[in-house]
């Protein structure tokens, strides 16, 4: 039987919500042999109805469900909501609070990027060495956060008006120690992943997203910056203390899975620099402005944007003068990136074995896509 006589037969593989790696979603892969014809993302397995719940909570109570939208990256999510509430109330937090907020957000960014490293390594068969290294490195940062806020993951520390408490005694020295320790550890990740020939073979040239396509399809975060577009909300619309801190926006030009990994790696380096700047030069002053327990903003709307680890989060609050918001619309980064993932099969020729590598290089966290 020659090649011409064989008809292409499409088989649908269902990569279900229970599978050996992480991820609460179902990906349907239409394959013909090894070549993927179509990718379909079946979302909604972690839908909790957060937008409806927030209509039933006061503005301060609303911080709790919002922070659970992304547990590895909690502070950025909470900050997006708190910035919108502050805009609706018309208050400005003090400068010291802004610097503390930036530090907490960068710690969460490192937590989240470590998770992305671990998963991308697991998807290429590197299990579970790098993933378990990341759990150890994350413990250092979680200890810092526990010392500051009392909780490991969901802090409820960033509130409208500032932050809950000031830095404890000796905290800044502990931060510098942690930063030095982590800098030494992160070199090992570069050697294990980027300079590793087998890993390179799995990731270089896989899942290429060109610059125009990344903009047209609405990609965000490291996916967009890995394709050469330098959009980063921390520079475009500085919030918290990012206007005063020095850092670079990291971009890479190739647009493949390896480029996205490198973007995350360099972003971790920038985050460590930011944390060091905050620990060294933080200005004095109060950390909180008095805000009533049940604030009632005037009728109107407020829209905020923050740069989370996965991309741009937007929170749009509509108020009607009551104690609860009228409507909260959340623009999730992962939902935008999952659309890009679905279109990957049309943009280039991908094989079945590349699908996990591409998926985890996009770094989805389905809890914020499903809200």
């Amino acid at each position, binding site marked *: 039987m020659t090649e011409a006589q064989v008809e292409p037969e499409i088989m649908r593989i269902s990569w279900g919500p229970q599978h050996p790696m992480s991820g609460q979603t179902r990906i349907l892969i239409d394959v013909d042999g090894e070549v993927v014809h179509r990718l379909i993302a079946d979302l909604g*397995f*972690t*839908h909790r*109805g957060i937008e409806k*719940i927030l209509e039933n909570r006061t503005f301060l109570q609303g911080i709790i469900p919002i922070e659970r939208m992304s547990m*590895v990256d909690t502070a950025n999510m909470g900050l997006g909501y708190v910035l919108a509430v502050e805009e609706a109330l018309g208050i400005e937090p003090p400068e010291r609070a802004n610097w503390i907020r930036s530090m907490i957000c960068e710690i969460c960014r490192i937590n989240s990027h470590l*998770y992305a490293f671990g998963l991308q390594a697991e998807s290429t068969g590197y299990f579970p060495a790098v993933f*378990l290294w990341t*759990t150890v490195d994350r413990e250092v940062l979680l200890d810092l956060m526990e010392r500051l806020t009392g909780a490991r993951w969901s802090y409820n520390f960033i509130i409208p008006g500032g932050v809950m408490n000031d830095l404890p005694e000796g905290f800044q020295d502990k931060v510098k120690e942690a930063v030095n320790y982590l800098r030494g550890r992160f070199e090992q990740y570069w050697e294990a992943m980027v300079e590793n020939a087998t890993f390179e073979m799995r990731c270089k040239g896989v899942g290429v997203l060109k610059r125009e396509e990344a903009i047209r399809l609405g990609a965000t975060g490291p996916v967009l910056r890995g394709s050469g577009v330098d959009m980063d909300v921390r520079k475009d619309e500085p919030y918290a203390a990012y206007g005063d801190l020095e850092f670079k926006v990291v971009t890479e030009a190739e647009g493949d899975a390896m480029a996205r990994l490198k973007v995350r790696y360099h972003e971790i380096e920038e985050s460590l620099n930011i944390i060091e700047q905050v620990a060294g030069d933080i200005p004095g002053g109060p950390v909180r402005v008095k805000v009533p327990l049940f604030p009632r903003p005037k009728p109107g709307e407020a829209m905020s944007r923050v740069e989370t680890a996965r991309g741009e989060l937007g929170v749009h609050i509509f108020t009607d003068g009551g104690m609860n918001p009228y409507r909260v619309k959340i623009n999730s980064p992962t939902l935008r990136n999952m659309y890009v993932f679905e279109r990957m099969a049309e943009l280039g020729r991908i094989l079945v074995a590349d699908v996990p590598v591409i998926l985890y290089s996009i770094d989805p966290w389905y*809890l914020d896509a499903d809200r």
Partner: protein
Amino acid sequence: MEMETTVKERIFDRYHIPKPIYGVLEYIVAWARKFSIWPIHFVTGCCSPEFMQVSGSRFDMERLGVLPFASVRQCDCIMIVGVISRKMGERVKYLYEQMGEPKYVVSVGACPTGGGPFHDSYSIVRADEIVPVDVYIPGCPPRPEAIIQGLMLLQEKIKREVKIGARGG
């Protein structure tokens, strides 16, 4: 179940083996079973990072024999880590039915236990509306020490179950 009753009838009752040896055998079997609980690798919600840290090196849960495993048929525990939405609830039921007896369910976190911060949502279910739960671990998210204590409670439960010669599981 049939096999176990015939073992009891054939060997133990016919040769009148005394109760203390029976007890020792049960103890050994329970010891082997409780240090090899293999849960399904299935995390459904935001408690998943804490579960990840429990399997890391500081709070190692593998020293208790707990190894998250991918193939459902070879597991004997389902740890429901995090909030279950309606769409996911069907899958939890399928997975529970696919496991072989004897099987256990551990509900980790405040959300599957009693709703948690999303208790009034239209879109979540509680774990005990779908599957019978053995151990509840509260917390949002529960500390790794709490998760390990919950697993040790499950071990205690397994130790107290009578397996040799008992019908049903």
